[in-house]
């Protein structure tokens, strides 16, 4: 992909992010931070690539460390978001 194509995706995604985040209800701002945390660990993709290629042992080790760190975040982030969201309840109708 050429640079301009990537830049276009990036700029448009910033706008999507802008509108989507403004529509998030303030009551869910803490879960928002937890889930953005989890998804930004998609950086694990880079770590996996580094760890999977054999030519450079240094890069492989760095990759493995990256995979470990990002996994903590992915599982922890999604799980804690799930836990928080499960607590938000409406008034029980009696």
């Amino acid at each position: 992909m050429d640079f301009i194509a990537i830049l276009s995706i990036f700029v448009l995604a910033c706008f999507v992010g802008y509108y989507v985040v403004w529509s998030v209800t303030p009551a869910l701002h803490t879960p928002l931070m937890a889930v953005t945390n989890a998804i930004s660990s998609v950086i694990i993709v880079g770590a996996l690539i580094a760890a999977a290629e054999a030519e450079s042992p240094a890069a492989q080790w760095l990759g493995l460390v990256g995979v470990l760190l990002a996994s903590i975040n992915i599982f922890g982030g999604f799980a804690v978001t799930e836990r928080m969201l499960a607590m938000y309840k409406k008034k029980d109708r009696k």
Partner: protein
Amino acid sequence: MMMPAGETIATLTALAYLVSGVLFILALRGLSSPETSRTGNRFGMLGMLIAVGTTMATHDAVALPHLVLAIAIGGAIGFFIARRIAMTAMPQLVAAFHSLVGMAAVVVGAAAYANPAAFGILDALTREIHQASRVEMGLGVAIGAITFSGSVIAFLKLNGNMSGKPILLPGRHVINLGMLAAILGLVAYFVGDQSAWVFWTITALSFLIGFLLIIPIGGADMPVVVSMLNSYSGWAAAAMGFTLHNTAMIITGALVGSSGAILSYIMCRAMNRSFLSVIAGGFGAEAASGGGEAKEQRPWKRGSAEDAAFLMKQADSVIIVPGYGMAVSQAQHALREMADLLKKEGVSVKYAIHPVAGRMPGHMNVLLAEANVPYDEVFELEDINSEFAQTDVAFIIGANDVTNPAAKTDKSSPIYGMPILDVANAKTVLFVKRSMGGVGYAGVDNDVFYMDNTMMLLADAKKMVEDIVKALGH
């Protein structure tokens, strides 16, 4: 139409990353209401699964067992922490998670530097890294390192391992700006010279400036810091996405980056402060000493738990205003019990939340949700502020600056201009506070304490609420 096998795979891979990017957008979209939020979270998980699965499937993973092991260990640690963490500790946890994203970005950047061929950023002719990739890599590593060290300081402050008071170094603005300029200069130099020392100096300077940037910021400014670091972790992921030409990473990075930026903006607006003044730090450091001399003894009324219980029982409507003090003493469960008893007496109970109450955006809402307070009883500042005038009792628990009328009247006050909850308009104000001595984070005295219709309930927040619950029981 037939395509060569390699090209087909490349197209499918790119499509898969695009799908996971879209799923991440839907994950955030779901948070527009509590009903759709859990579905949104599942979309996020699915998106991550697709991104990880695609990467694993398209690379000959010579080290597959290692990878699976690393994911299993990391996943188990993350899952364990997520299940065990107390809701009151959520700000620290989020800060700790941010630091991990930052470190992961640094590590991936370093791996890309060590093995550029694996990432397809090596120029076939010159055997050097593409110049554009060097810029992206340099910026990614720098932002990642700042996110890491900044989040570590934020974690230590929020967790109480480090004083929440701002630490001010002389000449810090000059030092910080100088270092920032040096980092940018080195990234530019990196384009012409890809030597290891350039790469590692960028990394080291960025770690250092992350520490220095967060050290002078404390206490009630933490919501801005946490949001800002959230934003940085996104930009770091986006920069790495540019290096790897990966759409999932770019879309996610842009989403997270703008999300954190918007949250920082909302927090700054709620304090009527500019983002720059928060980042410059030092707020509250001088004010605390200045307040001492001006303090004259003014009369105030002290009430007991029984008085408070009696007053609220007689009321038609009560608005509860929680703040950081509620989180510190973990009073949310007792508070819900109190509200339940009042509702049984036919009192209408609502909660009013100031955007910067607590130590991170939405902190109070999560704690109330944990205590099973229905979210349709919890209101934001703009939605409830006009109701105080028709309310019998405003019950303030562990909040101070966000109720201080000085923000409206006193031009010289450090909190002047900040939108506040108009608790003073209620017929009676019950103010739960540990002691009369301590003033809020901003170090300003609160006129609400000395009003004729205010009763101070001096005790630990949880203890006081429990006593009120007992008194209501009779």
